[in-house]
């Protein structure tokens, strides 16, 4: 009488590789102070945009297509934003993620970045570094898979 997983609900380890490549590529762009076309492998870029799409579906007031999956991704992304500014409200989180998504969608257009865009790019870089770290930690947790003994009270 049980379903093993909720469809589309994935832990941070799911995004670990994407986040690792994104963090490395964004660092290069931060150093160059510009966006560079073709820098990010297409499959990685697709997953990064997919992640933000999923996250932002749950950040607004509209009902997401897959609420458990979107809210799960949003909670992860909100944690990443709040790792930098702990008191960020839901509206602050949505605004930050919205700015990051707009820049992410535009990364393939090569151009020099304004100071404001550079700040957003840096925050995006920090975001993916955080996601990479969480993902690797989650992968380890899942790998070692602590099993709760029978009869042990978990709450």
């Amino acid at each position, binding site marked *: 009488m049980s379903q093993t997983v909720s469809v589309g609900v994935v832990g941070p380890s*799911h995004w670990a590789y994407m986040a690792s490549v994104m963090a490395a590529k964004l660092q290069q762009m931060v150093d160059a102070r510009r966006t560079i076309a073709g820098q990010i492998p297409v499959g990685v870029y697709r997953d990064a945009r997919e992640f933000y799409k999923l996250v932002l579906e749950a950040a607004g007031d509209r009902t997401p297509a897959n609420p458990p999956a979107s*809210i799960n991704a949003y909670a992860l992304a909100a944690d990443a934003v709040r790792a930098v500014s702990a008191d960020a*409200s839901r509206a602050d989180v949505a605004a930050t993620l919205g700015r990051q998504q707009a820049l992410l969608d535009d990364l393939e257009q090569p151009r020099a970045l304004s100071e404001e865009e550079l700040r957003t790019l840096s925050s995006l870089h920090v975001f993916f570094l955080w996601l990479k770290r969480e993902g690797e930690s989650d992968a380890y947790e899942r790998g070692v898979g602590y099993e709760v003994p029978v009869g042990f009270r978990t709450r």
Partner: protein
Amino acid sequence: MPLDAAQITSLAASPSLGAVTYQAASLLRQLARINDQEYLSEACQIKEAFECIAEHVLDQLWEMHAPDQLFEALDDSDFSRTQALGRIIHQLHSFLRYLWASSPRQSPPGIQSALKLLTKLHFPCPNGDPICLVRPQWKYNLTYVPMTAILRSNVLLPSVLDPNGTLGPSDPDSMLLELWRRHLTDASEDERKKLGAAPPPHVAILSFAGLDTDDTLSYPLLAHELGHFIDLSPLPPLSSSPNVNNAALIPEEEVRKVLEQYRGPNVPARDVTASHKATVDRVFVALREIMADLLATRMMGFGYFAAHSEFLKILAAWPQPTLTPSGYPGIKYRLGLVLEHLLDPDGCDFRSFLKQHAAASEPVVRTIVEGLDLYLSSWEKRVAPVATPSVASTSPLGDALNQLAVAAVDKAHGEIVKLAKGGPSGTLL
């Protein structure tokens, strides 16, 4: 030739590409042992899908392998990718247990045939025939494993399997199709015909409690797992269709208000988000279970209610709240919903069926009908709602959040029943 200091440092720091490559090759060897002499055709088809992914992973690992740089440090990207490809291999390997356990030695062919028939009767298959594999499990429970969904979301990751987009359109289904085509390149004409031009579009593993392998009265329980499979066959799933989502979704603000009521103002935003996520998860777990229960009731009728109630009675008494912390409906609540649907004149209308036979000429039939009617009446009393809980709660905040989830499930319940009765296109059951 001895390694130099830099090579030894790199050896200590990098994950072993060779070890993961060995694991991929080992997985392929183990998959090759699943053959149509010993296993069902369903297991063999699923094995082919695993195999085409594992072959691609092995190819990718070989591409990363540079014989002249065996002891060079992997760059950051290769370092992470080795681990990510390793995780895919580890997951695929863990799925082998489903194929092995489906062997006729462990899983009676009769159960597999019955489920195949039930699936054929009730599964809506606009995109191709479904495959469900039945197997016993050690844990005393039944389980649905949404294999297609797991492959899509956990295994067929474009960033890991195809970072440079060489497989063409980089969505999971297109990637699997391309890998399937490559896998069949060297296959004989006969084999290609047997396996088909595309991988199976809907794959599920349905597990039953191994202890009940020979108890035929327990088999209707598998209809619940098939109900999950039917629920998840369309995208979005029935239990997550737009009307259900709109009715069931709880705004984060409502969760914040409940938290502030019990913890005072200034609850950290992070706590609100975490509680909101947990509450929404709970609602959708409940809706999926209710949908699977209703579909199973519609497929198996009284047989499902009887098997379900007997199964649950053995597990525990009934002190649970309407929804448990994980979101599973409490025993009394779920049996109440199943019974309601079984007796609902617009649902299964089981009493009308009994009435047709109440005046039967054979006394034995009349006796059975009277007995069943009495049985159902006593169940109706047993599952009737009770006004107050008998045990005081130790977590008022937990109860309040649970109430929020219960209210959301109640709001969406009508939509779930409507979908179970006919589906969006009126084609279901």
